[in-house]
């Protein structure tokens, strides 16, 4: 594989790794949502015991907290499904890059035999393929070599187009995952805020606030992890967009 194609493959594979990270970060939220619901229901019971006047605010807060899992679960499921879609697109893309790069290598082997220099070409755009075809058409190829170049040439272009298409598909899905993660973060941030309010209320009216404290801490940690993943995904999405733009222009992909 040429260095440029190897780089392309590695970048596409990196997207796969991020999807796994996102899935691993999002899935524990389902367990957290379940715990949130249990604790909220517990809070509702406590509030009821305290009576209407003293437990009123706790009742409203815990009821609100109790509703949040209903919003979390479908988003986590959507993220999971979209990450699977991205993984599939990435996996297909890797296959096509492999096929494409081997076909380009076969063309280069024939080119080399006839002293057609192609070492400065990257073959991540059709521009280089067109240039190589033009160079080879001027070389003294045999009839069978010319037919081979034509047959291989007829495949490398659609394969490159498929690479671009699959990378774009993965890029679109990643943007969708990023939006879902932002929704999720917003919900979990609200959960963190409400849980802090609940903690304050419970500390004021009840001695046994430990369970709510620990719950609040876990929500906070989860929000931190999610925000970190969101930033990472943002970076990868930008990288993917740059990669796509570079593929379309057929220029060097900036490493930074």
């Amino acid at each position: 594989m040429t260095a440029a194609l190897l780089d392309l493959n590695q970048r596409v594979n990196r997207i796969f790794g991020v999807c796994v990270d996102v899935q691993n970060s999002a899935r524990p939220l389902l367990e957290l949502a379940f715990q949130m619901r249990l604790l909220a229901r517990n809070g509702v019971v406590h509030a009821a015991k305290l009576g209407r006047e003293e437990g009123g605010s706790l009742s409203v807060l815990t009821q609100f907290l109790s509703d949040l899992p209903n919003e979390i679960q479908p988003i986590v499921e959507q993220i999971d499904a979209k990450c699977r879609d991205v993984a599939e697109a990435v996996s297909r893309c890797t296959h096509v890059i492999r096929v494409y790069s081997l076909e380009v290598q076969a063309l280069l082997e024939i080119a080399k035999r006839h002293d057609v220099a192609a070492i400065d070409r990257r073959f991540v755009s059709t521009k280089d393929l067109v240039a190589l075809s033009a160079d080879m058409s001027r070389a003294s190829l045999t009839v069978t070599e010319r037919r081979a170049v034509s047959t291989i040439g007829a495949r490398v272009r659609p394969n490159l187009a498929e690479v671009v298409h699959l990378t774009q598909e993965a890029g679109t899905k990643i943007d969708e995952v990023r939006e879902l993660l932002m929704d999720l973060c917003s919900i979990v941030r609200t959960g963190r805020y409400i849980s802090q309010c609940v903690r304050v209320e419970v500390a004021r009216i009840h001695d046994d606030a430990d369970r709510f404290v620990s719950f609040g801490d876990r929500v906070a940690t989860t929000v931190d992890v999610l925000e970190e993943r969101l930033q990472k995904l943002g970076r990868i999405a930008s990288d993917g967009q740059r990669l796509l733009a570079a593929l379309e222009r057929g220029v060097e992909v900036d490493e930074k």
Partner: protein
Amino acid sequence: MRSEVLYEGPTHRWVVMGRDPKKRDEVIDTNEYAVVTPNGTLLPDPGGIEIFPRVLSELTRYCAVDDVVALFASHQDPDIVSSLPMWLDLCPNVKTYVSWMWTSFIAHFAMGRAANIIEIPDEGMPIPIGNARLQAVPAHYCHASGNFGLFDPTSRILFSGDVGAALLPSHETSLFVENFDQHVGYMRGFHQRWMPSTPALRSWSKRVRALNPSMICPQHGAIFRGEDVGRFLDWLDVLEVGRLDGFDAQSEAA
């Protein structure tokens, strides 16, 4: 990669391609063959995906890529046929002949492309290619449990897959066996460990003697021709295979 015409006849020719100098060291060296006819080309054991570009490029010296109409896989290993998706990409109508045991296994190599895989029954079958009439010759348990060679009655060339294979040192660059006694040292270990059944090997040797081949062309190592064909069959007749020297139940328990 080097290549040479092994046989040139009125209806077809046999080509061998091998000794790829660009092959990475960790990739086992393989020989690729082509049976080229005016009406299509068959590739016996087209090779692994790693060496595909060089095989394809070398093949263009003898035929056009879209002339490839059939692949023959002696068995299911990756060095035999992991290039399948590449051939399917360039020649979507190519037929792949393989033992019935491995049809669904090698389909894993197809990478989502529709593969026209033709089952070879245990007893073998004729494989026509242009005007050449090749024959799949059983070699079961001589390496894989479903294993075939390919015999051409016209040239009397037998493509033997892994039977007769040798692991050659890098200085041995000839495509043919030059010194049989020395060559035995390169192939003994391979046969003893990679072949599970001595009775199966004896049966294969008997079957092959009846074919009276002019050349025995393995997928690894060097080609036997002339008197070396008989020497090789004689050597096989006394060879015990399926050996695990230095590793038995006792050492496993220890």
